[in-house]
């Protein structure tokens, strides 16, 4: 129902719905709307133009065109209902069954469906009508049959994609019989696309119905349908050009209404829970933003200029995400510097804002998530905030390489790895096909993929997780970037593969003098590969510094707690240290230290006001904690 509400609030949803309601009313109560008997001939007024007596004029038998158009709404609606319900009654169970059963059933049914699909639909409809005889119902049987093939394909495809989800497995373990798994677990999760398909089918059915009636294969005289009215109008339109307009407009507007409604539904469903982007969903979905009604604007405390020696210099980065209580900052005034060749880790729990920060730097924020205009991201001397999408794509294509967590999801399963590697080389670097292939081979070889030339012809699913991640790294290297942004690149890999990929990344950074911004929640990985680390908590950097110092003497209580919660091989404590509570959401207004509510050392002053990131004694480290600030002052 929330979906319906969101459809209604958009003009692209309201207008079609109003039109369809009008058509529906006409179909249900034609006598209420019609001004005349639609089939009553009046030879005194033949082929009249629009007038007060006949709104849309009259036809060659003097029948009132307005009343006939209204009357024709019923066969149109009936036709749509018949065809669409037949398509669903046939298509749904067959699609569900072949998708779930798989094997021979699937192969045979789908080959038959493909074969029928290869015939032109209208001609097939003619053939079926020719066998069953003319008449609207027969025509709609044939159209319904044709559309059931589409439903079979759609449903089967969705079943195949959902079938392997763990929740289906869990349903079986809960003792659910197959029919329940199909009806209660699979079907509800396919409703969105099904509703969209049904809406669009209605539009297509109307057109086919009109075409069949136009050709005299649908409703028989004297009953009116929009298609048959058009056919009759043909003989008279030379002298009476308005005659085809009323039925023509009725068809066009109704089809347009269904299609627009379908599009709107699809947009709304795609943005709803389960769809949409990850970053804002977390905030919205968890309902974390209790209480706060206005977005807390991060204090502009740092007006320091970007570091001119740094390759990447981020200053006062704030990223605004939508939450259930309005826009709120998921990142609050982050400063990060990366010098050429340096590896910097961005560490934190889910909800710390580390991934959003990385996406902001790469200019890849999902729709609806914005960078606060006061933020500065300097890369290679260029300010990236405010660049157009096209300019940003150019920066990514030539200077910044991206590696994501799930390599198989980041590669297009329908294209060979060779194509996906060579394509950007040809677009961004203007290489010929042969040169792009050679360079692809070189890149795969560089990331340690054996038999690179043969493997170019393979599809992503033929690569293991570790090998697929190597392919992603090769793609990131293609543009010879000076900066790699790696977002949890080894989290989905097992420890042995993780180690190999980490070794590769470090080696590449050294050999090609690339800098790397490495996003992870795994402190072990940070310790093994990073030069410096930024510990993030609830959108802020809480501690930064050289990894050796940071791990030896973590200053911020959160860094200490995070470090203590890592399971170790050689610690005899059976219980792991945990941090009570949870990370506050972007919309939660917290006056003081954002970690205070979970901190064992918190005291009254911690909640009193914002805590700044202060530089610790020794220079290159800073921490956002009142305790360390006091220590620094005592020492000074």
């Amino acid at each position, binding site marked *: 129902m929330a979906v319906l509400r969101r459809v209604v609030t958009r003009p692209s949803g309201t207008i079609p719905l109003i039109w369809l309601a009008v058509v529906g009313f006409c179909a249900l109560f034609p006598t209420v709307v019609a001004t005349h008997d639609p089939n009553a001939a009046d030879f005194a007024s033949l082929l009249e133009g629009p007038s007060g007596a006949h709104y849309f004029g009259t036809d060659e038998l003097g029948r009132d065109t307005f009343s006939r158009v209204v009357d024709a709404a019923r066969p149109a609606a009936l036709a749509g209902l018949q065809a669409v319900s037949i398509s669903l009654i046939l298509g749904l169970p067959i699609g569900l069954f072949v998708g779930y059963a798989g094997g021979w059933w699937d192969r045979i049914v789908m080959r038959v469906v493909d074969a029928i699909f290869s015939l032109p639909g209208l001609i097939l409809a003619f053939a079926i009508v020719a066998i069953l005889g003319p008449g609207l119902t027969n025509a709609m049987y044939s159209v319904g049959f044709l559309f059931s093939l589409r439903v079979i394909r759609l449903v089967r495809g969705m079943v195949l994609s959902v079938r392997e989800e763990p929740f289906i*497995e869990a349903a079986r373990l809960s003792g659910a019989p197959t029919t329940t798994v199909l009806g209660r677990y699979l079907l509800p999760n396919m409703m969105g696309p099904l509703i969209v398909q049904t809406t669009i089918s209605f539009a297509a059915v109307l057109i086919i119905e009109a075409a069949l009636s136009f050709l005299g294969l649908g409703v028989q005289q004297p009953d009116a349908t929009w298609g048959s009215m058009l056919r009759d109008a043909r003989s008279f339109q030379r002298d009476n050009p308005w005659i085809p307009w009323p039925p023509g407009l009725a068809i066009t507007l109704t089809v347009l209404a269904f299609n627009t409604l379908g599009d709107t539904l699809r947009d709304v469903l795609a943005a709803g829970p389960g769809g949409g982007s990850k970053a804002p969903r977390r905030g919205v979905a968890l309902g974390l933003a209790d209480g706060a009604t206005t977005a807390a604007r991060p204090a502009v405390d740092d007006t320091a200029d970007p570091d001119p020696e740094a390759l990447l210099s981020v200053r006062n980065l704030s990223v605004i995400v939508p939450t259930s209580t309005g826009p709120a900052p998921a990142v609050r005034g982050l400063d990060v510097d990366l010098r050429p060749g340096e590896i910097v880790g961005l560490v934190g729990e889910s909800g710390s804002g580390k991934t959003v920060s990385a996406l902001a730097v790469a200019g890849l924020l999902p729709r609806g998530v914005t960078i606060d205009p006061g933020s500065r991201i300097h890369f290679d001397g260029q300010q990236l905030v405010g660049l157009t999408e096209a300019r940003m794509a150019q920066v990514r294509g030539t200077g910044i390489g991206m590696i994501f967590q799930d390599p198989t999801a980041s590669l297009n399963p329908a294209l060979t790895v060779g194509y996906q590697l060579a394509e950007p080389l040809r677009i961004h670097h203007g290489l010929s096909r042969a040169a792009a292939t050679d360079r692809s081979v070189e890149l795969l070889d560089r990331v340690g993929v054996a038999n690179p030339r043969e493997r170019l012809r393979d599809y992503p699913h033929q690569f293991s997780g570790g090998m697929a991640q190597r392919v992603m790294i090769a793609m990131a290297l293609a543009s010879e970037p000076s900066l790699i942004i790696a977002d949890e690149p080894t989290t989905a890999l097992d420890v042995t593969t993780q180690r190999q990929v980490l070794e590769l990344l470090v080696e590449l950074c050294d050999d090609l003098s690339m800098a790397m911004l490495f996003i992870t929640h795994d402190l072990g990985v940070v*310790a*093994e590969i990073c030069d410096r680390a930024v510990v993030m908590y609830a959108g802020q950097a809480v501690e930064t510094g050289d990894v050796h110092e940071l791990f030896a003497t973590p200053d911020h209580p959160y860094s200490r707690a995070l470090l203590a919660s890592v399971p170790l091989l050689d610690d005899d404590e059976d219980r792991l240290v945990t941090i009570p509570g949870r990370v506050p959401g972007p919309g939660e207004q917290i006056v003081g230290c954002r970690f205070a509510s979970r901190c064992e050392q918190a005291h009254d002053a911690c909640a009193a006001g914002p805590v700044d990131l202060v530089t610790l004694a020794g220079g290159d480290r800073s921490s956002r904690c009142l305790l360390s600030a006091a220590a620094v002052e005592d020492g000074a």
Partner: protein
Amino acid sequence: MTGSLLRVENLVVEFRGGGAFALRRETVTAVKDVSFHIGAGDAYGLVGESGSGKTTTGRCVLGLQAPTSGSITLGTDDVGELRKRDPQLLHQRIQAVFQNPIASLNPAMTVARILAEPLRRLVGMKDPAAARTRGEELLDAVRLPTDVLDRRPTELSGGMAQRVSIARALASSPSLIVLDEAVSALDVATQAQVINLLADLRDETGVSYLFIGHDLAVVRHLCDRIGVMSQGALVEEGTADQVCHSPQDDYTRRLLDAVPVPDPTVKRVRHGHTTR
């Protein structure tokens, strides 16, 4: 060790490769002659990298995959035979928690419905009010507030969703839970909470675990005994301390060596890099 609850003897699983139209079919042996026992109330860890056959072994224990040969016995019943005779009873006694927390829950159902399913089908608790009360108890057991009952999976964080999955597994009071990479997708802080929760639940309910994972540091914290699998075979088995502190097999040593250590001075992929 108390009497064995689960006995896996000489388990072999082969998969036939190639499509139905392929002329030549290759047989892939996913599990090669694997045997181990889990005592009542024990936690057994099965460790190995992707493709080592550990997940396939877990699926056989759950009755989701038929073994090519070998036997799996739960108490006095053969799992394969029990699956044919009374699948509900098998599922009541062996439950599972999978890796991906959100995807393990049906997005179209509320948490209350998700928990009611096993209660209704496996325990025979038909009364919705009773199921709701039991659902509240289960959430309480996994340390979640009861208002979670009316939420949908997409409204939960990863850690919360995984607790709901654990609650669902506990619903039928099983004697064994297969935890297949159940904490791998969680971040460090949440992972620590869930590991502690699993340890507490074992103490409270006496349930046994078959814990499948790739990170020995994690597995060690929860399990009494650990089996190490490589390329389908069990290459080493022993108590958690034996396997982690005096590994006998080269592969185990490699696995131990690959565990990242949060201390830059211990072992480091990146050596001696200096920034200008």
